[in-house]
């Protein structure tokens, strides 16, 4: 019984820092992995990093030690000595001396602090960069919700290379360790595509359609899906370099769209180059 108490005492009172740092780290890590909103991921990332810093600072703690700045009596220049003791000022005027071993215990360990200064700086640099990425993504896709971005990317790729779309869809899904139910996903994406087909892509499209909107348009979009994707893929088919209709392309997922594409292949050509 006593031992158990000791363990609890040790873990929860003395080592609360170590426990809380783990908790914070896990909160941050979980947010980084599972949050859908990119900004939330970034907040998670910052929490994750500060948790590690907390760990390091905890390592540097010394019971009964002062901050790692020399006390006036040890100040190398002795200029801060205000105590009247004569021999101390005399010693200070002699120049700095190496601290005795006993005095070392009076100061906290400065090394972890130094390391963490660096780590904080790295953290803010990463954060700034990632925020810029967020803005860039928002400019490109009009949203910072991960699933919607994925849906848009998928659609973009389908337009560029109908045959690889299926594969790249898979890879992009794994890439973000984030998988939505495929059924809702395809529907959602087609909803978005239908919407985007109508609206000017440059205007800030209202993303994150409310669920009611989604539901209402779901039935419509389900029926119009093949058509939309067909027209999309047709526009991409007509690339100067690859103007041959790809009958053998792996479009087993959407056979209808492929055949439609074949018929209307060399129509309006709007090659969408990946760069730009």
């Amino acid at each position, binding site marked *: 019984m006593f031992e158990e108490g000791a363990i609890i005492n040790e873990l929860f*009172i003395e080592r*609360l*820092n170590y426990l*809380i740092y783990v*908790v*914070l780290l896990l*909160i*941050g890590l979980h*947010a980084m992995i599972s*949050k*859908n*909103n990119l*900004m*939330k991921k*970034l*907040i*998670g990332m*910052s*929490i994750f990093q*500060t948790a590690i*810093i*907390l760990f390091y*600072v*905890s390592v*540097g*703690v*010394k019971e009964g*030690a*002062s*901050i*790692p*700045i020399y006390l006036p009596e040890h100040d190398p220049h002795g200029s801060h000595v205000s105590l009247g003791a004569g021999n101390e000022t005399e010693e200070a005027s002699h120049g700095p001396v190496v601290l005795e071993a006993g005095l070392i215990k009076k100061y*906290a360990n400065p090394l*972890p*602090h*130094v390391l*963490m*200064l660096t780590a*904080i*700086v790295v*953290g*803010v640099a990463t*954060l*700034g960069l990632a*925020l810029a990425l*967020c*803005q860039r993504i*928002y400019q490109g896709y009009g*949203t*910072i*919700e991960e699933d919607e971005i994925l849906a848009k990317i998928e659609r973009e790729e389908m337009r560029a290379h109908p045959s690889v779309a299926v594969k790249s869809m898979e890879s992009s899904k794994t890439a973000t360790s984030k998988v939505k139910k495929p059924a809702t996903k395809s529907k959602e994406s087609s909803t978005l595509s239908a919407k985007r087909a109508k609206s000017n892509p440059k205007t800030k499209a209202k*993303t*994150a359609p409310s669920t009611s909107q989604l539901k209402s348009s779901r039935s419509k979009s389900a029926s119009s899906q093949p058509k939309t994707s067909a027209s999309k893929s047709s526009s991409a088919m007509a690339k100067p370099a690859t103007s041959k209709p790809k009958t053998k392309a792996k479009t087993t997922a959407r056979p209808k769209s492929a055949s439609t594409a074949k018929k209307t292949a060399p129509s309006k050509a709007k090659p969408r180059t990946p760069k730009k």
Partner: protein
Amino acid sequence: MGLELFNTFILLLLVVAAIVALRVKDLLTASVVFGVYSFLMCLLWAEMGAVDVAFTEATVGAGISTVVMIATIFNLKRKSSD
């Protein structure tokens, strides 16, 4: 003991702040709460004797990071799905 209590109190508040910052749906609120989190962290570190680190965290974590985040959110949507 007083210090230990202070320590414990801040540690618990930290967890609360972290969870709130991640759960709240309004990104502006989230970043402000994140600023609070950073400042709590800074208090904790100052208490633990890491004054330089605390100073840096106060200026960077609670200051610049929050401002920059809010500046970003100004250009994005404020609502988050989770």
